[in-house]
């Protein structure tokens, strides 16, 4: 049978109840949901349905070249490979209902590299290779999916994120907006006989860039703009002339129903900065280039500059909402969570610097050089919109007496800076990890002594502190002292295996919320019922693991992804593992960011908790895979430190 005939035949049998039912089931999952119905019918009709009891091997390397394409109809499949460091096996991935395997082996016409086992009683649909090959040639969605594998899934997630962000940007950001809606203010018009000087005064009083010359019926005859004024003045023209001698006659106009896009096109094509809106031959508005520009995404450079030059703390506080809009807009333009957290960190750094400078201006500069340190997520440059203050001050002093004297002078300033930062939306730290705390306004030697204590007197409290303070960064002032402190810290940790072991134990405390039998482990009761914590349960394992390995191997970076990257390059972790960890971390962070944006928009308090049942299938699947990577990182730590 030719493949065309086979597909036509499949179309007929698709009316069979069971074929139909199985198709309906598959249509809930990618790539089957994008496949042509006839192709999908052909797939189902050529499948067999097989049962595998829990623990039964479905396919393994010794089976030779893969002969079937498998789809999990019900149950779960684990990929297992021999453990790299200890005896036994480790689970490398999990395949759940609606997912398929082993794509790489099937397309590569080879055996699988991993044994696939039924993690629970499982039904799989098996499509013989010949039928798969036929479909592979015919169905674009299947081919794309098979060739791009999981990375195509990640693309889909990103597209989804972008679409959602675009939806929430609202009409005011759309180039489809009616011009009539954008031209808020009354147009400024004048008679043809008005002397130019008077017309310019009118423009100045009304703070507009253009004036439209109209006849008594309010029909536009010409337009005069600031650009024209520049030319007129440069030419040395007499300003008492009537304006109709100097205006641009027959100005370009559009109806108020035209779109912002139409106006933008016209301006670009004609090199004009103003478009008249005319309805029934009467002037009803003017749209300027600037009106359209304000539609476009908030400009990062501009925002950064505004923050850097803000004259008052109130201005800085007001700019926070623009940061949120910027994040929205960046999500819409496909920015990754890494770019966004870096951007937020950058803008926050600007805000912190500006607050410090303004406070110094207001309270008087004590004339003592100091460095503003930040810790925790701020130290790792991983801030989201939800930001706590974790900061301190470092200064140079010869001895304890001098340090105490300097501290006394800097503390009032530090307290005021903390308060002003709170005004700008940086929540005051509940644990009082703030520069205004005398214990955190220290000389470099005092800091070094304190860090040394954390490492050598390993109480639970010190361990917790080291997880916050050892992610440190200088934001304002000379960074030299901070780097010296870091070097001392790294050499201290590198030589202390006991401390490393304790950090490792600590890094295993937060287990990713994956159960043996259910997809996600969620809170059982209370207000947090059915939810899991993306930050504590999802990100913390990566952050803690990366910190430990970075400190132990002399990596100076603080950012989790930079740390993982550096560790891969040093050969401390396998490059493939490092890339997988980075990707997983990135995805969880992205999910968290999206959540925060939605909460901010709905006026809800920020929360890191999500109900996995509220995520769509694709997000659930990738989130689960990301948590599994966290588990793998943890088990590699357990092996490394023999826990």
């Amino acid at each position, binding site marked *: 049978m030719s493949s065309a005939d086979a597909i036509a035949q499949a179309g007929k049998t698709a009316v069979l109840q069971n074929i139909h*039912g199985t198709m309906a089931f598959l249509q809930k999952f990618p790539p089957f949901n994008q496949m042509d119905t006839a192709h999908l019918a052909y797939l189902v009709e050529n499948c067999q349905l*097989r049962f595998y009891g829990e623990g039964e091997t479905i396919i393994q390397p010794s089976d030779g070249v893969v002969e079937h394409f498998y789809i999990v109809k019900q149950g779960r499949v684990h990929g297992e490979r021999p453990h790299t460091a200890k005896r036994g096996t480790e689970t490398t991935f999990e395949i759940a209902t609606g997912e398929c395997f082993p794509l790489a082996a099937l397309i590569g016409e080879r055996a699988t590299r991993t044994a696939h086992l039924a993690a629970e009683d499982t039904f799989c649909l098996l499509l013989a290779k010949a039928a798969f090959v036929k479909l592979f040639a015919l169905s674009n969605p299947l081919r794309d999916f098979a060739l791009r594998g999981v990375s195509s899934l990640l693309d889909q997630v990103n597209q989804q994120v972008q679409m959602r962000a675009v939806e929430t940007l609202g009409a005011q950001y759309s180039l489809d907006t009616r011009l009539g809606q954008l031209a808020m203010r009354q147009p400024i018009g004048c008679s043809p006989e008005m002397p130019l000087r008077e017309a310019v005064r009118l423009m100045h009083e009304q703070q507009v860039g253009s004036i439209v010359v109209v006849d008594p019926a309010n029909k536009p005859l010409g337009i005069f703009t600031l650009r024209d004024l520049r030319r007129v003045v440069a030419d040395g023209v007499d300003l008492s002339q009537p304006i109709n001698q100097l205006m641009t006659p027959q100005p370009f106009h559009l109806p108020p129903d035209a779109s912002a896009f139409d106006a933008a096109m016209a301006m670009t094509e004609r090199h004009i900065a103003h478009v008249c809106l005319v309805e029934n031959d009467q002037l009803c508005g003017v749209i300027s280039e600037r009106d359209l520009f304000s539609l476009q995404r908030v400009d990062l450079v501009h925002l950064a500059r505004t923050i850097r030059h803000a004259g008052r703390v109130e201005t800085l506080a007001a700019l926070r909402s623009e940061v949120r809009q910027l994040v929205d807009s960046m999500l819409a333009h496909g920015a990754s969570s890494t770019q966004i957290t870096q951007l937020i960190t950058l803008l926050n750094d600007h805000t912190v610097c500006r607050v410090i400078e303004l406070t110094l201006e207001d309270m008087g500069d004590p004339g003592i050089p100091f460095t503003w340190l930040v810790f925790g997520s701020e130290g790792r440059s991983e801030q989201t919109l939800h930001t706590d203050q974790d900061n301190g001050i470092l200064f140079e002093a010869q001895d304890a007496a001098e340090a105490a004297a300097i501290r006394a002078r800097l503390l009032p300033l530090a307290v005021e800076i903390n308060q002003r930062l709170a005004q700008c939306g940086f929540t005051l730290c509940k644990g009082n990890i703030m520069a205004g705390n005398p214990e955190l306004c220290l000389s470099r030697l005092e800091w070094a002594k304190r860090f040394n204590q954390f490492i050598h007197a390993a109480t639970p409290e010190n361990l917790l502190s080291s997880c916050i303070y050892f992610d440190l960064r200088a934001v304002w002032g000379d960074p030299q002292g901070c780097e010296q402190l870091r070097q001392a810290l790294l050499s201290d940790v590198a030589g202390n295996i006991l401390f490393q072991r304790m950090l490792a134990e600590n890094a295993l405390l937060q287990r990713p919320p994956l159960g043996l039998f259910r997809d996600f482990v969620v809170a059982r009761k209370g207000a947090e019922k059915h939810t899991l914590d993306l930050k504590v349960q999802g990100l913390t394992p990566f952050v803690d693991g990366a910190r430990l390995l970075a400190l132990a191997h002399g990596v100076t970076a603080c950012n989790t992804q930079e740390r993982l990257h550096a560790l891969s390059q040093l050969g401390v972790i396998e490059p493939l593992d490092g890339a997988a960890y980075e990707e997983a971390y990135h995805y969880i962070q992205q999910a968290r960011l999206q959540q925060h944006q939605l909460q901010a928009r709905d006026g809800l308090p920020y929360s890191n908790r999500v109900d996995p049942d509220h995520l769509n299938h694709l997000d659930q699947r990738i989130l689960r895979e990301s948590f599994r990577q966290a588990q793998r990182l943890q088990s590699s730590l357990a092996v490394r430190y023999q826990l």
Partner: protein
Amino acid sequence: MSKFTWFSGRGPALTHNQLERLRALREPAELDERSLRQQRFVVLDLETSGLNMRRDQVLSIGAVVIDNGAIDLSQQFECTLQRDGHQASASTLIHGIAPSQIANGVEPAEALLDFMEFVGDSPLLAFHAEFDQRMLARALKQSLGYRLRHAFLDVAEIAPLICPQAKPGLAGLDDWTAHFGLQVQERHHASADALATAELALILLSKARQQQLDSLPALLQALNSRRRQRAYSM
């Protein structure tokens, strides 16, 4: 195809072609010691006009095949039988087959020949198999004058044999599919029920193999001794 109809005193009226096909039907195979994995089964579900095994009629047949330890989705049987003067009744609500569908169905002799050709020499599996066996046997007798001798295995009987630890009182197909967490599509449709029964059978056959009951004779023997034990204990 010949329109010429043969009347024989006892049997039903069949066309020449139908008689040819009837003669060509295969004898049921001997139940041998081959592994359950190698055994072909036809899993059957019937929708009938009611539960009276002497009066009610078969309205539709759904069947799937278990071959080489897997349900082969390319081998499926689904057929609604034409029944003159069929009235909607209480069971219409259960099987959901409208009288108009019955009127448009396949002529019973044709449908049953198609089905028996589909079955071949394989043993049959059904849930509460006695009912399906007797309804099918009667329909075959009436429409074709054929005596059904194929082995029938009852999934409702195999299930508690293989899973004695399951809580007692699991009776219906729904109970057992729920017990194993099977996701069943639209039920109470002959082919959907046949598929659900077949999925259940796949699990049970897999577990039977683990319990060293890896051939039909071994399985039937175990079923018999369970029947005797139960008769004794009553």
